[in-house]
């Protein structure tokens, strides 16, 4: 069936590429996978760089803006500012003649029967919305004042939560925590799994038997639940959460690496290395590890979303990182509870969460196709 092999004398000079380079080439050709990668980079940038570009911190509470829906318009909007300044003018016992808001500054013209004390500006500053009110011109013997100052107008593109915190800042923080937990926990499971699997596979025999039996027993422990127990009983710090998740997710990794090591041990190039007189350590370093990287990398792309899911599951149950810190899972849980009154609380974190998982999935599939050993 597969005997379509063309045998050129020597492949053309320019085409010498390692398997990794070939894999990278194939990966780049896979549009879904590339789109996934770009999306992941964008989401990571949003989560980690985003906070430097917005003025609200994740724990800043805006009592006047509780559960406001998302909008591109700044808050308060022009009409409500009008109401506010009229109230201020009333308190300052002046008449408001003109009022205009442009971006973050306002200009107002106030008049009175008597000359106005310039200290009246403090009435303006007293309102939450206005700041740095200054007199720019005095006209009509001080009976007319032209004022200018800054308006503290807030943008809530994603709306705010029921505590009056900016959801965008919260989603960014949630992204940081979810991504960090995902990567760190995968790293933990990777290190344990590779070490355990490679040891078990390489030593083989009875020790391999015992080590794998242990893994089997651990498999029959109800794991998600064990994580819950661990987190509840040992506390809910960030470090603990990723350590615990990593500590329960290494089993598959260990099995995969062991399988790979066993398969590699039977390959003839390992035999050739032994015949050349390489030591065990040289064989592991020069031959086994480089050849297990492919499947391991692919598996990591499976573990990262799994870990993120597990963390968000914990958060959903209220066992994740503690407030005011948050993660996507915690935000989604909050949104699910307010689904009728404030659906945006569910929609925004869910979009980011699902997009991340989707992208990871596509990137992982692409990686798997790119590293497919069939092309050996």
């Amino acid at each position, binding site marked *: 069936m597969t005997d379509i092999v063309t045998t050129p004398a020597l492949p053309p000079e320019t085409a010498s590429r390692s398997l990794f380079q070939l894999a990278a080439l194939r990966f780049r050709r896979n549009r879904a996978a590339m789109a996934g990668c770009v999306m992941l980079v964008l989401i990571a940038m949003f989560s980690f760089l985003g906070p430097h570009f917005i003025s609200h911190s994740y724990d800043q509470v805006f009592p006047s803006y509780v559960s406001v829906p998302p909008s591109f318009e700044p808050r308060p909007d022009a009409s409500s500012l009008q109401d506010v300044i009229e109230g201020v003018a009333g308190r300052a016992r002046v008449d408001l003649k003109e009022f205009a808001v442009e971006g973050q500054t306002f200009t107002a013209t106030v008049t009175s029967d008597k000359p106005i004390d310039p200290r009246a500006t403090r009435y303006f500053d007293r309102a939450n919305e206005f700041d740095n009110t200054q007199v720019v011109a005095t006209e009509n013997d001080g009976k007319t004042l032209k004022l200018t100052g800054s308006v503290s107008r807030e943008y809530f593109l994603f709306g705010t939560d029921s505590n009056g915190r900016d959801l965008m800042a919260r989603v960014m923080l949630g992204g940081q925590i979810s991504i960090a937990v995902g990567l760190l926990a995968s790293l933990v499971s990777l290190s344990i799994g590779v070490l355990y699997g490679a040891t078990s596979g390489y030593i083989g025999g009875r020790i391999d038997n015992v080590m794998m039996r242990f893994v089997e027993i651990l498999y029959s*422990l109800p794991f998600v639940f064990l994580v819950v*127990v661990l987190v509840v*009983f040992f506390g809910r710090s960030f470090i603990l959460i990723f350590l615990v998740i990593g500590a329960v997710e290494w089993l598959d990794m260990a099995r995969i690496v062991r399988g790979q090591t066993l398969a590699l041990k039977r390959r003839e190039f390992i035999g050739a290395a032994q015949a050349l007189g390489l030591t065990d350590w040289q064989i592991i370093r020069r031959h086994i590890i480089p050849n297990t990287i492919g499947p391991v990398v692919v598996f990591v792309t499976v573990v990262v979303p799994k870990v993120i899911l597990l963390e968000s599951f914990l958060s959903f149950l209220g*066992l994740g990182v503690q407030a005011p810190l948050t993660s996507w899972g915690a935000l989604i849980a909050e949104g699910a509870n307010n689904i009728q009154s404030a659906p945006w609380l569910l929609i925004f974190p869910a979009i980011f969460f699902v997009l991340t998982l989707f992208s990871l*999935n596509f990137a992982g599939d692409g990686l798997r196709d790119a590293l497919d050993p069939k092309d050996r």
Partner: protein
Amino acid sequence: MISFVLRRLASAVPTLFIVVTISFFLMRFAPGGPFNLERPLPPQTMANLMATYHLDQPLWNQYLTYISNAVTGDFGPSYIYKDNTVAELIGKGLPYSIQLGSYALLLALIGGVLAGTLAALRQNSVLDFLIMSVSTVGVTVPNFVVGPVLTLVFAVVLAWLPAGSWGDGSLRFLILPMVALALPQLAVFARLTRGSMIEAMHTDHIRTARAYGLPPRVVVVTHAMRAAMLPVVSYLAPAAAALLTGSAVVETIFTIPGVGRYFVLGAINRDYTLVMGTVVLIAIFVIVFNLVVDILYGLLDPRVRHD
């Protein structure tokens, strides 16, 4: 066959024992206890409580007592639901979880296998792409997102179905939680089936069947499907165990009185006995389903007959 089952059940005993032991000590070495409330109890009350539940005894004694009681089916009283034993709580909740879970399992298995087979037979078609996209959604979107979204759409906006609760147990109440529960597993079944079906269609013996002019139906159903079912059957064990022992998330979202909630409630409240009871329950389910799957596997594949 019978000796195989007996041997497997015998080998389950040490596994179960190790699971119980690990869980027991893990829990006890953690700080805190079931009666450490936010407002501390008076020392005398505390001491009485501890004595009532034998928590004042050395850990080793407690462990031995627990094990010897557990062997007789006595998993002790729940510390939080004070009027109930753990066995009662689980006995009450389990039928709900099993009913919902078995519906979900059926839905996931039948839907997943059908969708996966269709996708495999029309590989790279629009249908294939659609099925795989939906199943990617199913795999990646967790049920704590799916649940609320389903509620929002079908219960709140369209008002077709009730938003939650067991109700009278009729299908109307079960549809949404069942779908939320089944969707991730359905997606896994679909992907597994598609993958193994495509692989099966490329095997040499399928080529043989085609070369001998067997009708396409026979080639696909008799030869390819049976081979493709092997990995699907393997996945049945974890899927069944996960679905039938209830899901904390789905039961919380849809307020279903199953056992799934106890895992979390027990853990949060440090209800040692309730936690241990649920651990044993899950472990038994896992072991039993693994055994069932091994037997099924043997029926499907003559190369692994157990005799």
